[in-house]
């Protein structure tokens, strides 16, 4: 229903969402895997998609929004083209991951303010090329401290080596 009222461009977007919903039999119990699949598709959870999912599943938008904002894996804001995740699990923390985070934030001009609960936007660069986040352990603790860039894991990093990785991407993007 909602889909019909939407303009062309967005309407086509919902085709994929419909497909995902059908794969899960439009079962509200499957909300978490549905949102995972949607995020896989769009790289974030756009608000109109959340509303559409709620309508299709016959649950309130608040319920969907509640789930989408509860889990750290979900994001309701678009992320940068490259996702830089720094591990700040215990093993990486004791091997001095924080200076790496600071160095990356400084190089990219972003600031992780998650602890204060303000403005997720500041994790992403203005040109939408990079998002810098921390995660609590990627299970590669033997290689601490660990940086993951676009799903590629880099172990035993230092502030200098991590900045170099990012710089290589910046050069690549400039070309």
């Amino acid at each position, binding site marked *: 229903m909602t889909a019909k009222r939407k303009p062309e461009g967005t309407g086509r977007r919902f085709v994929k969402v419909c497909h995902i919903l059908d794969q899960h039999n439009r079962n*509200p*119990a*499957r*909300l*978490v*895997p549905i*949102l*995972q699949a949607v995020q896989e598709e769009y790289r974030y959870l756009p608000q109109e998609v959340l509303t559409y999912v709620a309508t299709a599943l016959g649950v309130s938008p608040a319920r969907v929004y*509640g*789930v989408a904002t*509860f*889990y*750290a*894996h*979900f994001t309701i804001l678009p992320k940068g083209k490259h996702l830089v995740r720094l591990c*700040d*699990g*215990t*093993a*990486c*923390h*004791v*091997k*001095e991951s924080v200076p790496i985070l600071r160095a990356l934030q400084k190089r990219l001009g972003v600031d992780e303010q*998650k*602890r204060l609960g303000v403005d997720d936007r500041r994790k992403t660069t203005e040109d939408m090329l990079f998002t810098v986040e921390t*995660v*609590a*352990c*990627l*299970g*590669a*603790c*033997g*290689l*601490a401290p*660990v940086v993951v860039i676009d*799903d*590629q*894991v*880099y*172990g035993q990093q230092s502030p200098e080596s991590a900045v170099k990785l990012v710089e290589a991407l910046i050069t690549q993007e400039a070309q």
Partner: protein
Amino acid sequence: MSAQSLPHPNGNNGHTAQRRVIVCAGTGCVASGAYKVFQALVDQVRAAGLPVITEFRPEHEADAVRLNKSGCQGFCQMGPLVTVLPENLLYNKVRVEDVAAIVAETLVAGRLVERLLYVDSTTKKRCRGVEEIPFYQRQQRFVLRSCGTIDPESIDEYVHQGGYAAAKKAYVQMTPEQICQEITRSGLRGRGGGGFPTGRKWEAARSQPEGKKYVICNADEGDPGAFMNRSVMEGNPHSVLEGLMIAARAIGADETLIYVRTEYPLAVQRMRSAVKDAEARGFLGDNAFGTGRPLRCEVMEGAGAFVCGEETAMIASIEGQRGMPRPKPPFPAQSGLWGKPTIINNVETLAHAVRIVNEGAEQFRTLGTAASPGTKTFALTGHVANTGLVEVPFGATLREVVFDIGGGITDRRGKVTRDGFKAVQIGGPSGGCLTRDHLDLPLDYDSLRGAGAMVGSGGLVAMNSKTCMVSSARFFMDFTQRESCGKCVLCREGTRQMLALLDDIIEGRATAGTLELLQKLASAVQKGSLCGLGKTAPNPVLSTLRHFREEYDAHVFHKHCPTGQCKALAKPSIDPAKCKGCTACAKKCPVNAITGERKQAHTINQALCIKCGVCVDTCKLDAVIGV
């Protein structure tokens, strides 16, 4: 290169030894380039004219080389690891450029490539393989036994090694009562944190009226800095699935679910393919093991919430809700997923159940202590020479784990130091710290609880003398504070306030009242929280307060951090006895706070210093102190 000849692989007792090369392809080794090494091996072995086999075969031609990938072998720091059988050599830190030597020297000429062998940090001895490496030698690997040899993507190999015999036995020969009794007699306790007797839990669900029941495998592994469960799922996924099947049979469930942490993509992939292969074999499906009983399994990914490791929160998450715990009772064994009897067990618990059904409760009890039988896997990380997965019988001492297996404590440059040991944090954000006084404490559920710590999931973080215990407590508080689901006021607000108090201490704003308030809040949060997250959140603070009170006092009353880690309190100074006046630090200082004549001891102008710590990193003589 000095090459030592190896006995001919086919020389031992007339039996044709199978030539096999195993490349570790767990998360750690893959990050270090294991896939490239594997591909190079395939190409170059072929180019050397040797037949290459990449799938499982029970027997193969003597001149052929079977190449396979394994799961994590627990020694990721030294990865990528390459094992050569039958000699059982272990080559470490293998790069693509080293593959030529492995093929030409070892596989063709039967010689060692010495430079790729592990060198023991204490004895400086080169070790040929796991039998000679102290890190492995002193472990007793049961759950991890096949991780590292078996091809995790081959159900054939698992079955060939006797896999699924226990599940079959449970389905065909044993009654649910018998299984529960056997598990109860084994004394198996949950490896996921609480240490609850598994047999009792299963029995509680079994004795519920027949009907829909569920078994969930808790593979959420939320403790940051621990990766035992990931390794088992990546290295031997069928052992987890088989344990899950046994649990299902024991309570009469026909649906099972594995809830895996989303940060573990490889584990998710391996578990999914294990389920698919088990379905194809008829172990799962409408007719499990030909008994006519249905048995299904689904793999679900978590979405990044630590609290979902808690049983009732996990159930809410599976039902498509926010992962918030609810009060117990009713326990999940009575009313769990969709209101039906449900048991939730940790990955490692389930893997142990397989062996118990196979070998019997008595055999299981031969290891470990009377009250904590069997082995436990710990993820040893932090300031130790050998970080990695360590499986030891319960009752092993901290000294054995940290020094004999871990190879001792390292300083910030990674060198082993003699007196560097300060503490270990055990049990993650719910646990506590153990000190020098606990080095000979047996690691088991009850002694650890007595010492104010806990086994938890098995995270063991070693900390050297340069680690500030207040900062360490703050780190865990920051974690729990972020992960609180927000349902209980005392957990949600209390942890946040405790974090603020710790920040006051670390940043020099604290007074005597701060410590008192911290203690009071800690006990309020413990009492007023619904689930384990809130109940145990104050533990790291309480246990550091108990064992390192003087360090808190130094921060609060003297505005001094004894380890120099707390930047706001730092007063960097140069030890004139150590400083040789090399001027290195003065050149690097961003604000020119360091002055002194060449070859004369330098000094720091406190009024200018911004406490950046550059000078400490620069000085090769460790003459700058207090940062």
